[in-house]
């Protein structure tokens, strides 16, 4: 599996072959607080880089989840829909959101590595 990359919209992505796995970052999960609702895209749906692909809601507010890559949704993680609280427990592991068959792998080049993302997240939190 590839090195984990991060988007400015607080998603992480890893890639295996041409399939990307996407989730929200630990930082995002912490900011959201207790997650109580997850909505995922339908399988087969075509999504565009930085386009809306899902929704997470905490007790506080609703937030869109974006896709950091363009392609077709091949799989979604039903377990986080059934038990949204597990997103807070393991946001960057078992609580992935969806898988995308990536159209253009070079899209990943524009994303941040872990160190850059952590710096970015720190600067963008008040």
């Amino acid at each position, binding site marked *: 599996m590839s090195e984990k990359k991060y988007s400015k919209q607080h998603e992480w992505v890893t890639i295996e072959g041409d399939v990307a796995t996407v989730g929200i970052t630990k930082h995002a999960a912490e900011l959201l*607080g*207790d997650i*109580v*609702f997850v*909505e995922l895209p339908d399988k087969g749906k075509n999504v565009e880089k930085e386009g809306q692909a899902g*929704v997470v*809601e*905490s*007790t*506080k507010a*609703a937030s869109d989840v974006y896709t950091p890559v363009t392609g077709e949704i091949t799989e979604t993680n039903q377990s986080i*829909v059934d038990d*949204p*609280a597990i997103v*807070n427990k393991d946001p960057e592991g078992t609580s992935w959101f969806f898988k995308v068959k990536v159209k253009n792998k070079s899209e990943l080049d524009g994303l941040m590595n872990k160190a850059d993302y952590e710096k970015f997240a720190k600067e963008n939190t008040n």
Partner: protein
Amino acid sequence: MNTQKTALYDYHKSLGAKFVPFAGYEMPVQYSSGIVEEHKITRRNAGLFDVSHMGQLLIEDNENLSKELEKIIPIDLKKIKLNQSKYSFLMNEQGGIYDDLIITKVEKGFIIILNAACKNNDFKIIKSALGSKSKLTLYKNLSLVALQGPKSSEILEKTINGVSSLKFMNGNKYSYNGKEIYITRSGYTGEDGFEISIPNELVEDFAKKLISQGVKPIGLGARDTLRLEAGLCLYGHDINESTSPIEANLKWAISKRRREEGGFVGYGKIKSDMNGSLTRLRVGVKPEGKVIAREGVKIFSKDNNEIGLVTSGTFGPSVNQPIAMGYVKLNFSEPGTKVLLEVRGKKYEANISELPFYKKNYVR
């Protein structure tokens, strides 16, 4: 406008609070354990809320005070007993609500607890209604904290001797570190609990004492989920200047004599609402799935006609499902009525529900 801080600000910070601006104050929205855990602690044990941003208004007695106050507050002030508290409203001319409040009869007159966002405006309205001779004090030197949860009484009794014998919606004077404090058995969570009015210079010491006895600090986030489960209104959302208490399903809060006799501003609307011209009612709404319907979500009938609007909505940690409140047309207000909620362009099935969502545990 400068953001104000309560006397407990530094203490909140030391306890790991995350702050949000609320009604001109920097208030803790949650601490490190998070909203859901804070909510559950309050239901199971006891939680401490800083509500010092709320207005504490003393109106000193004079011979006409009850009569004059009754013109703007629709409760029976002839019947209210010393140290008794009542939930009521500051009414406007159109029968809407300027603010909802708790009024307590005290030796000096009446103490009224007002919403933070409304308190300065309320002061002007009350002052102008009572005339220039009236004596009003909106305390700046007093803090207000709420201790809420089933263990509240047992815990507070250790510090304040005799407090556990207070009955719900009653108060009394007590002493703490040699200073007078005033405690009522009341709250905004659907749990047994107390609200403690205490001088600013003592409040941190008092809070620390409770925290050292296992009480957890609770932020505004959990305060909102707790009150919503308890079916309690949030001013500015579930009730406002254009909702009448009858529409808000709060008829019980208007004393019987006042409902019949009127004599307060906005009575025309109240009377006509009670006599058949009511068109909408505040209700509980339970989505069937997990979707959360927040303020502003439109409510539709099963045949897709728009019938109302959600005014508050969240996930209820104790009922373990999404819950909401809102207004619907009267003929859709019966509990069990099937409705649809439009969330992010999609319609979701929901049911009109009884309030509260969570059964109250008050000590009467």
